[in-house]
């Protein structure tokens, strides 16, 4: 069937040369909800890096902040075609968290408090490319946006920036997380438009 609906253009944002291919600029911050929103207090919050030998490095809300929270201004790109430019965040650099971690693995499975997973190469989490983010748009991260803390790895599509981040588990090979098992690209580079399998 070739019915074209005259005048229908879809809800598209404005195009912008600073954006990766297929993205449009929006002014808000859409929430994509995949399940019930977890309710995690900062008292009970923790983040753990687990190596392939089972060694665990763990931070609670206090010790995370002692590592040092920094300002980040960055662009974010959602695979559902919206982008925001120059978004202000605050978070702890993942480089700092990996300083004492001994691993020979190149890949990480990120796990969240609600059972979601996403895989990221370790190289994409280091060299100033990733944070455990606690604030966005000048405010504490709200629960619907992944608060108290989410992963922020803005050079990849935003589904990799896992909400309610709980753990990074080292793995020797790149294994697909939740969306990657269900049709989405293993790596997700917006500049190469790596959206799907």
């Amino acid at each position, binding site marked *: 069937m070739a019915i074209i609906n005259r005048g229908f253009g879809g809800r598209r944002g404005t195009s912008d040369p600073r954006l990766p291919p297929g993205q449009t600029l929006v002014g808000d911050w859409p929430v*994509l*909800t*995949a*399940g*019930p929103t977890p309710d995690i207090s900062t008292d009970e919050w923790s983040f753990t890096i687990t190596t392939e030998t089972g060694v665990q490095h763990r931070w609670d809300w206090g010790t995370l902040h002692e590592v040092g929270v920094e300002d980040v201004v960055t662009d974010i790109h959602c*695979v*559902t*075609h919206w982008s925001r430019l120059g978004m202000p965040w605050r978070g702890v650099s993942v480089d700092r968290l990996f300083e004492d971690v001994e691993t020979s693995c190149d890949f990480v499975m990120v796990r969240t408090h609600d059972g979601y997973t996403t895989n990221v190469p370790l190289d994409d989490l280091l060299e100033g490319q990733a944070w455990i983010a606690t604030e966005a748009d000048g405010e504490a991260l709200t629960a619907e946006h992944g608060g108290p803390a989410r992963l922020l790895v803005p050079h990849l599509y935003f*589904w990799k920036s896992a909400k309610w981040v709980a753990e990074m588990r080292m793995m020797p090979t790149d294994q697909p997380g939740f*969306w990657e*098992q*269900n*049709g*989405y690209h293993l790596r997700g580079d917006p500049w190469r438009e790596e*959206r*799907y*399998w």
Partner: protein
Amino acid sequence: MTHVDGNALAGTLVDVLGFDSTDAIGECAGCRHRSELARAHAFVTAMGAIVRCEACQGVLAVVVRTPTDVHVSLSGLARVSIARRVSRAPRPPSP
């Protein structure tokens, strides 16, 4: 927007399975709860649809549409029971 329910997936199920199965009974692989697929909680966004058990919130099914494919995971459903039934044939064109 929070969630809707399995009624919203009727069209997708027709496209994928060829028939509307929202009244089929699904059994959750996690908690064994059995109920019509229409009663499941459906979180539908532009990334895809995540269908969760109304009892335990475990993921029953995932539907992702890409430009070239539809990917359906039913791994959270232990089984689906569909009543056998008669469908009315399409009406012939009016004279």
